């Protein structure tokens, strides 16, 4: 159950029967390009939903526009395919009207970082209880390959034939800056990793932001090679575990040491190559460390995967304090209408 505060728990509807991924599968034909990473993400999401045990009737998927925005059609829950960039705002309204629902928001890097950057920022800082997942393929797919806000500088595309001059957005850093309290990173192909991250995101009460590095076979094939190339990934990525030293490498022979107070991360040898006490232990509640981890990238440092930051706090509903499902009634309305100065004409009084 996606419940950390028992006062806000969904009404108990009795024993939930065992669910499988099939229970969250619609009869709609999935129409993504063959080889698209979205298939793997969809599979992971269905599995996590089944395991979480929420009734499909209590689950809602909201999306904007883009390839990933087709998600709701392929999930047998409630769903709303809305307009470009605005899914976090629609989802905020859904959560306001019914805080019990398990609400997921799906949007690509164009949806979340460009046209919807504003709404993403505010959903995060308000800490609306949403599971925001962002497949990031660093390109606009549905509009045919233009560079996106996440594209690397220099990317050639139909709208940047000489190479994009823009610096890419670091999504995890942006989320940290917006005040997100759950930030994680994984990749479409990492089926031994992605489900665990999604599960943790769903369990978090408040806004959880998950960036899923994803290959676009048609317009940006080969992006995030560090994650996808089986030969490279062990040496170029770091899998984070809270409370564990940050060790990586095919032979588990490298670690990340953070020098404080400068906050500089460097690779140090581990095992035969060096002492393990040099290696920094991952603390997902440490904002400064999360900032360093979010920035780590090739060529000098591995890409950090897993939960970068997780510090729960009261979510939007709890903060508002008007969560009670109370609806104004006629008695209250009568009081409202006659609040303040009134005067009576004649003998009869309508009230």
């Amino acid at each position, binding site marked *: 159950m996606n419940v950390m505060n028992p006062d806000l728990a969904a009404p108990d509807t009795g024993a939930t029967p065992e669910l499988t991924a099939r229970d969250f599968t619609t009869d709609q034909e999935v129409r993504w390009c063959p080889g698209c990473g979205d298939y793997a993400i969809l599979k992971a999401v269905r599995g996590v939903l089944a395991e979480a045990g929420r009734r499909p009737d209590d689950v809602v998927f909201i999306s904007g526009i883009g390839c990933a925005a087709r998600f709701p059609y392929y999930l047998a829950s409630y769903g709303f395919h809305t307009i470009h960039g605005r899914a976090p705002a629609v989802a905020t*309204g*859904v959560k306001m*009207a019914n805080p019990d629902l398990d609400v997921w928001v799906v949007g690509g890097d164009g949806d979340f970082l460009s046209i919807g950057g504003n709404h993403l920022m505010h959903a995060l800082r308000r800490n609306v209880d949403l599971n925001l997942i962002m497949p990031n393929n660093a390109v606009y797919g549905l509009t045919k390959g233009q560079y996106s806000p996440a594209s690397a500088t220099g990317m050639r595309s139909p709208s940047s034939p000489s190479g994009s001059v823009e610096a890419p957005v670091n999504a995890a850093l942006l989320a940290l800056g917006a005040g997100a309290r759950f930030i994680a990173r994984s990749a479409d192909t990492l089926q031994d990793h992605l489900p665990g991250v999604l599960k943790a995101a769903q369990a978090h009460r408040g806004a959880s932001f998950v960036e899923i590095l994803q290959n676009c076979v048609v317009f940006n094939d080969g992006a995030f090679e560090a994650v996808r190339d089986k030969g490279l990934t062990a040496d170029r990525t770091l899998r984070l575990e809270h409370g564990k030293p940050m060790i990586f490498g095919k032979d588990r022979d490298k670690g990340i040491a953070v020098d404080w107070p400068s906050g500089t991360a460097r690779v140090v040898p581990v095992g035969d190559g060096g002492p393990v006490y040099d290696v920094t232990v991952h603390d997902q509640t440490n904002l400064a460390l999360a900032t360093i981890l979010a920035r780590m990238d090739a060529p000098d440092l591995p890409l950090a995967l897993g939960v970068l930051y997780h510090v729960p706090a009261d979510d939007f509903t709890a903060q508002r304090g008007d969560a009670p499902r109370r609806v104004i009634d006629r008695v209250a309305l009568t009081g*409202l209408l006659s609040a303040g100065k009134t005067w009576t004409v004649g003998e009869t009084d309508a009230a």
Partner: protein
Amino acid sequence: MLDQPTPPDLSDNAAAQGPAVIRFAGDSGDGIQTLGAEFTKSSALTGHGFMTFPDFPAEIRAPAGTTFGVSAFQIQIGGDRVKTHGDTVDVLVALNPAALKTNLSALRPGGLLIADADAFAKRGLEKAGYAANPLEDGSLDGYRLEAIEISRLTREAALPEGVTKKEAETARNFWALGLVYWMFAQDRTPTAAWLKSKFAKRPEIAAANTAAMDAGHTYGDVTDMAPPPRLRAVAPASPRPGTYRTLTGIDGMVLGLAAASALSGLRLHYCSYPITPASAILHGLAKLGGEGVATFQAEDEIAAATAAIGASFAGGLGVTGTSGPGMALKAEALGLATAAELPLIVIDVQRAGPSTGMPTKVEQADLNLALHGRHGEAPLPVFAAAGPGDSFETVIEAARTAVTFMTPVIVLSDAYTANAAEPWRLPDVDALADIAVDRDIDPDGFHPFRRDAETLARPWAVPGMTGLAHRLGGIERSAGSGHISYDPDNHQEMTDLRAAKLDHIRGALPPAAVTAGTDAGRVLAVGWGSTQGALKTAVEDLAAEGHAVGHLHLRHLSPLPRGLGEIFALYDQVVVAELNSGQLRGHLQGLFPHVSFRGLNKVTGQPFTVAEIDAALREDLS
């Protein structure tokens, strides 16, 4: 507590009754709107009919003493026939030269001008651009001038209450109010009580303002200052028995939305982004948080509209409100709500445009935007509120329509109606009809776009309901299954269905009716929104003279009511009066090509006067 001098004896003037128009004007820091609110309250409690018109600058605090920093408040008080704030001013209170300069043109010849003589010193005159002191150079000979040292008299009255000199001087608005209270024999007890509670933590400030008000009142008594003879006896209204309160258009919207929530049993979710003049609805509803009303200050207009749509998708009553430029930003979301067929109320408190335009001034120029401002064909109902009390009813009707027909509804108000106040008879809450929400949906064979034959509405299944999980979206869907469909014939069918829904709504709304003047004849004056008071007054006056002229006011601009063409045919000429360059006229001309429409248009940021409409209609009647 209050030393209550004998009010002027008005009995011998009973024959000379008439409404009175009073305007207070001063610097935007002078508390003019506060003074107006207090005068309004007192007018209400003494049984007068009234309509107010606050007219203030967009600048929060323009430099003191400048003409662009002038704030004004006008009220017409009188009997039952008071439906506007009045064309020309009978009594003008000018607290400084800039206020005189910008408001004198409204004062009728021979009208009473009360000026704070102390403010007409060199510096104030220069700031207002006067080469010579108008109080002394004879330029005001056409008026009855009372140049009073209000600042000095206020200081003398207020200082003994233990306030600073500056605090004492700021009480001069209450001195002026006290004087006007004297002139119109109004009770100042409620204002004294209000001051006491307002400044409960600074009782000396309350005492200073009360002392200033009493001093102004006494000044009237001692000098026997009276309003111009015609106004000595302002007849109280003789309204229907009942309990009354003062209501602005904003109040009407706020209470109407609260009522819609109570009548439907749906929790209200008002999602909005601050913008003048619609912000006041957000403020009003935010105060009702404890009453089961939820408000959400979104990050922008688009988020406000889409969050409201999300709230409706999840089973609440989603409402978004804005003004002028904000309405443009909501266009895409309105298309989504139309396609998804979700109930949604969108309030547009129109203001003068284009772009930022004149945020605090009135215009009715968003009609075309409301009727047509969406990509693709996305028809939706557009209603307009004709005044404060009508705002309450219109917004309830909008909610009923939105929920019954599963459609977004636009409600137009404007800057005049929003801020104007009138006496409002409290409705009998028990007599208000429920807004039925049908959640009895059979999961067997359910699909989200199966239609009710009578309303063409789809079932409103909401997340959490068992067995009714479904997907909505802005992509075109098959009329049969609700699945995504690019089939050409299907798009035609869905487009036709969306249009047909408006026809079904038309059938449920009351037919068109002439509400003032004659039922047939020479001229029919057609209006919508806040022009109602001026149109009705002008038409009633002309009809009383024997002219064959009628007035028809449209609340429903889309769909237009039944029977409109038949009514048009009963008049030689149809005059369409609106505060734009002819948007409704163009709309009507397209639908009724054989009717002869003439436009009566004004785009000055100011409401129509009765005289303007009277003159225009006489042209057609002569």
